[in-house]
């Protein structure tokens, strides 16, 4: 066989292997992002399930906060709608977080409620879910960053262009989230 032909074949093989591995790594990264996004959904659902319990546990004590409670119930039923796109979902869930924080602050005015075992337990479950949601968000951002790097960096960006992969948005942590931490401290001190 001709030497040039061998060289061409070897080069072609190398190029092919490179293309395959870039392709696979892009798919892998995209799937990781989807996978973690799905987990966030599961966790949000876990939080939706806790809200009615919370409302029923606090409503007989919190006479002055009925408005907040109605609002959170309403937000929950809106957020559970399966037809929402992800932006709307994020927005609604941010509002739910805000409302939940409102309740946490308000609880301070009801010592009886604060001492209620059922409520303490529920509060623990909600805190746990919130911490898990925040963890999932951070995991999501880490995988999205990894994915975006591949989509934008040479040479995988060429492949990503052909495959139609686009840069994905990170979860922004807004002002209310940052306050969230302080409220927790306040609540537990």
């Amino acid at each position, binding site marked *: 066989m001709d030497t040039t032909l061998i060289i061409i074949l070897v080069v072609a093989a190398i190029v092919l292997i490179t293309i395959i591995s870039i392709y696979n790594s892009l798919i892998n990264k995209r799937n990781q992002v989807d996978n*973690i996004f799905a*987990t966030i959904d599961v966790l949000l659902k876990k939080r939706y399930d806790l809200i009615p319990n919370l409302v029923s546990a606090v409503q007989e004590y919190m006479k002055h906060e009925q408005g907040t409670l109605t609002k959170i119930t309403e937000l929950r039923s809106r957020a559970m709608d399966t037809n929402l796109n992800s932006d709307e979902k994020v927005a609604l869930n941010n509002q739910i977080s805000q409302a939940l924080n409102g309740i946490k602050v308000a609880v301070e005015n009801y010592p009886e409620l604060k001492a209620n075992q059922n409520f303490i*337990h529920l*509060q*623990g*479950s909600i*805190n*746990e879910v919130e*911490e*898990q949601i*925040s*963890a*999932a968000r*951070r*995991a999501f*951002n*880490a*995988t999205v960053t*990894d994915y975006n790097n591949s989509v934008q960096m040479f040479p995988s960006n060429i492949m990503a262009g052909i495959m139609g992969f686009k840069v994905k948005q990170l979860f922004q942590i807004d002002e209310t989230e940052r306050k969230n*931490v302080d409220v*927790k401290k306040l609540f*537990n001190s």
Partner: protein
Amino acid sequence: MKTYEEFKTFCNTSLNNELNNQSDLRSKVVKKLIFFRALITLQVIGILALMGVFELLINIIEDNWFYTVVSVISLILYVVLIVFVYKHQRKIRNEFTYNFKLRIIKSIIEFFDKSLNYQPNNYIPFDQFEKSGLFPRRIDKYYGDDYVEGKLDKTNIKFSEIHVFVEENSSDNKKTLVEIFGGIFFIADFNKNFNGKTIVLPDKAERTLGKFANFFQSLMKQYGELVKLEDIEFEKEFMVYSNDQIESRFILSTSIMDRLTNFKRKVKKDIYISFVDNHIYLGIHYKGRLFEPKIFGKLVSEETLRVYYEQLELTLSIVDELNLNLRIWGKE
């Protein structure tokens, strides 16, 4: 947590008598030990001399089996005697150390917290060390002492000194034991529920290799997947592996990353952490033995006491430093 000033007052008052007693005891023990050591030295010289004499005798009285048997038997008896004396002096030493720990170290530990239970000769069992998953390889030698357990507020804790060795082939094809971890091994309840396994190791690579470190770190598959965290200071000190990307972030919240970084910088030693089965395992690497009394030389100088204090304070402060008593995530 008790301050160093409080500790000094404690040493000068409550502990003072016992320290003096132990000091007197030490002088007696030292005299005995010196005597036994001299005896051993003399015996060794004796045995060498005797061997020379025997050799001479055997040469002179050739083929006399009686003399040969007598010399061999007396040699054996002599060796037995040396071993006995050597063992006896070791026993004296160990007894002194045990007593010292039972009186001094135990009081110091109770000074920190009355609820803590101290057992000088006990240590964290091997299966619990293994469960931490921090050193997933064959271990050839494992021992320890100074076991402490108790409950600080809501958190159950236990820790001890341990030493962990593996056999390695040295250059001349001989097997030598190499210590891969030595120091304090600490186990406590963690304040969150989790199922997976998350390992936090000291990041030696990042300090030397910088950005390339990530590539090599991702190759260490025996620990699970590499977890890249967003806290830059934390990432400088540690590398994290886990079998669950989300759960590892649930455990390593922004606040706990900050707390671990601060703890690491306070300790100034390599620390190994793992989160397995709702527990935190934490190893602080120290050189040499801990909480041992000096037999030759001043028993407990101010410096020695300060070291005892620092090591215990650091270990017991883990609960507060990591805020393990904060139980707001559904775990009682």
